[in-house]
């Protein structure tokens, strides 16, 4: 995401190294995917389950919600790259739908 959409780097100006594979990038990537994995457990009430994270992104991190879509696309690409046989169109649509709902729930507290 940071490489393909350089404008997203603006949120991480406090890191020393924004290159692919750098320490901060790897650690934060793991944290973010952990958050997405947590959302799976709240799949029947994403708004409720992600309320705290939404408040964090809205009031503290102030991430423009358009970026959730950008990150979702990159997650799709990486999953397709790592699991080419499993990421069928059916799997892709289910996964993309889930990420869109997560993005929506994450945007809930913005306004």
């Amino acid at each position, binding site marked *: 995401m*940071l*490489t*393909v959409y350089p404008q997203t780097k603006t949120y991480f100006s406090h890191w020393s190294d924004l290159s*692919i594979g750098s320490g901060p990038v790897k650690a934060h990537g793991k944290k973010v995917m952990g958050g997405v994995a947590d959302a799976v457990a709240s799949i029947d009430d994403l708004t409720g389950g992600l309320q705290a994270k939404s408040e964090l992104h809205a009031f503290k991190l102030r991430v423009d919600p358009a970026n959730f879509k950008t990150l979702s*696309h990159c997650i*799709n*690409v*990486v999953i*397709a*790259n790592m699991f*080419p046989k499993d*990421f*069928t*169109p*059916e799997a*892709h*649509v289910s996964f*993309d739908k889930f990420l869109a709902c997560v993005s929506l729930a994450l945007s809930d507290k913005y306004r």
Partner: protein
Amino acid sequence: MVEWTDFERATIQDIFSKIDYDTVGPATLARCLVVYPWCQRYFGNFGNLYNAAAIKSNPMVAKHGTTILHGLDRAVKNMDDIKSTYAQLSELHSEKLHVDPDNFKLLTDCLTVVVAGQMGKDFTGEVQAAFQKFLAVVVSALGRQYH
């Protein structure tokens, strides 16, 4: 005018020389119609698109997918003037086909996913950036003649 680095030029030529148009084209269009079902509105006369299995085995989808991918050849061969290369195609999509230009991005996102699945570890972040930059220029050129 779009500036291309040597890496970007080489990457685009490399990707398009390696992919099998008859596999990637159909897979891309089929994926687009499954993942973004509203795109089916443009293919009313393609017959059975009722579910993913039908879409994936539909011969008209396959044929058209290959056609679309070959349409990208023109941009690959004319990277320094994609805008005028696609002037006529842009008019066609606007005046005759009435395609919402937002759909171009959906299709190129699916193409990126399909190519990512094919290229394995060669599909690095830098390669993806070059590929998506190229596709963004194509999408922009295709949307230019809309009014």
